[in-house]
């Protein structure tokens, strides 16, 4: 039997049972559409998250105080963690290949100007934060490179804080009160938007040492190293580790390279994509069961036809092919419709709800189509085997 004839015969019997075929196709189409749509959303979210994380640049290494370990008691009881100090930061800056460092202390305090007050994030940072984090200054300038230990009381406002507090007035040169201390505004940042729910525009930047005093912190919360592009993050991280161990006497800090973070994030997001894809696959499975049901009914109804085909010379293999062929054609058509609907839906969703990024990974779509055909094959095998196993004489008599 030729491939073309096989497909023609399959289509013939599917067209004969239009309504039934349509509903079965619909079942598979819904399954494939949901797989395509959900993986599109998953992939879109993945790309969105990765771009969120890399918007500060990729050649970054973060150092935090304290060592994450699974052994021992909480640091609150026996605390032998030495604080990360500004001196540590200055030492780290001497590592070859490190372009700049930023120390970070973060807290929350009201920022007041005249009668207006806004509770906002206070970021104590070094003067290099603007370049290292790739946040540009819209007006004025960023914090000047003062002596870090005796920095002047200057502040740079995030765009939202600036517009909320000052409205039409230019904030440059004005004096605001932060946690009761007076700070002079030297700049306003460009709007950078949110990152994972943290509004970067709803923040103000003050020198690190001042923030440490303001929040009564002994330790920096983080030191970020910006290293030259082209260097291995691991090399730089190792040097930083050795230096800090020498200074602290033990490894009481955690070094996270951007690469590691992206790896971890990437694998987490891969799992998310996989999980939503799996949800879609459940409906695909239901569609497969639909095909199996329909094929079982078809075999029962067409038992005399099977007998006849055997009598006019069809081998068991050909009967098997015929019924599996029908199941696969059903699934493939359903798969194609589902692909169009899913990709179309993802595109429409992306167009209508721009906040929800979607991206249809075409290789997934291809997998989905292959999966549909495979499901057809699997769902068809059992009924088709039953048909092929029928005794031709019994089958002929079954009218």
């Amino acid at each position: 039997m030729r491939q073309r004839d096989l497909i023609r015969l399959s289509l013939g019997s599917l067209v004969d049972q239009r309504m039934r075929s349509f509903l079965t196709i619909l079942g598979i189409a819904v399954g494939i559409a949901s797989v395509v749509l959900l993986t599109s959303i998953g992939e879109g979210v993945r790309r969105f998250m990765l771009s969120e994380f890399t918007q500060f640049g990729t050649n970054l290494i973060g150092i935090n105080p304290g060592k994450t370990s699974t052994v021992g008691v909480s640091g609150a009881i026996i605390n032998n963690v030495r604080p990360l100090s500004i001196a540590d930061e200055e030492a780290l800056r001497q590592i070859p290949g490190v372009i700049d460092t930023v120390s970070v202390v973060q807290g929350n305090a009201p920022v007041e100007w005249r009668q207006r007050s806004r509770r906002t994030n206070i970021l104590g940072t070094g003067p290099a934060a603007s370049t290292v984090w790739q946040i540009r200054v819209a007006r004025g300038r960023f914090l000047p490179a003062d002596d870090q230990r005796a920095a002047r009381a200057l502040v740079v406002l995030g765009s939202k804080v600036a517009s909320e507090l000052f409205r039409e007035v230019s904030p440059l040169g004005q004096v605001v009160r932060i946690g009761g201390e007076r700070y002079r505004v030297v700049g306003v940042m460009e709007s950078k938007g949110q990152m994972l729910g943290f509004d970067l525009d709803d923040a103000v930047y003050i020198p690190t040492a001042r923030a440490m005093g303001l929040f009564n912190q002994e330790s920096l919360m983080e030191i970020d190293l910006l290293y030259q592009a082209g260097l291995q993050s691991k090399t730089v991280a190792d040097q930083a580790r050795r230096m800090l161990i020498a200074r602290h006497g033990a490894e009481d800090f955690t070094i996270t390279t951007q690469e590691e973070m992206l790896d971890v994030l990437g694998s987490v997001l891969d799992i998310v994509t996989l999980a939503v894809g799996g949800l879609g696959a459940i409906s695909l499975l239901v569609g497969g069961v639909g095909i199996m049901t329909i094929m079982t009914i078809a075999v029962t109804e067409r038992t005399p036809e099977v007998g006849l085909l055997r009598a006019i010379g069809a081998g068991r293999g050909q009967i098997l092919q015929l019924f599996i062929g029908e199941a696969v054609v059903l699934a493939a058509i359903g798969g194609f419709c589902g692909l169009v609907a899913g990709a179309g839906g993802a595109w429409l969703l992306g167009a209508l709800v721009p906040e929800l990024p979607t991206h249809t990974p075409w290789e997934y779509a291809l997998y989905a189509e292959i999966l549909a055909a495979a499901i057809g094959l699997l769902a068809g095998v059992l009924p088709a085997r039953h048909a092929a196993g029928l005794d031709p004489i019994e089958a002929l008599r079954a009218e």
Partner: protein
Amino acid sequence: MISLTRICREFTVGDERVAALRDVDLEIGSGEYVAVMGPSGSGKSTLLNMIGLLDRPDSGSYLLEGEDMTSLSGSQQAALRRHKIGFVFQFFHLVPRMSAAENVELPMILAGIDSGERRRRVGETLEAFGIGNRARHRPDQLSGGQRQRVAIARAVIMQPRVLLADEPTGNLDRVSGGEVIDILEDLNRSGITLIMVTHDPELGKRAGRRIRMVDGRIESDS
């Protein structure tokens, strides 16, 4: 051409073993016209199915054109059914969703013959059987006689050596039954071996050879 030796076949019906064929010996020459007669349950259909390779004997040997059939595999038997044997049934067994032409085409599709050749042969055969203008009709749009002619066209489209007909007129009125018999006899005259199971003594008389079966045995052969 067909040589059956000591063929036995038993069926299990409920708890009972029923012998459908008991030690049947039968020789049929090429081009013969044989009517198989006898009461129901006498093993006529089983004999026909045996010759048509739809059934296997429990014991005995069956030679078709000198070849041993009992040792063949299922797919080898299917290939022989495709090329050497044609079946005609009482209830026509046309595929209801297919047109007359498509029904006739089926054996050639199974044999993998290309579509141009198929179309040519279908056209010729339907024309020869006087149903050329019915090619696009589906079985439910055809009369009983026309349906059986389509079924015969399907049975002979592969130019088999043997044509097995199980009560081919059993479901037809006298006139169309007669037409169908004329076609079968024409085919027999052009060389095909025709073996026909029938209840009708009138039909039996027309055959060159009559076999009467009772209780799975050949009672008379003339």
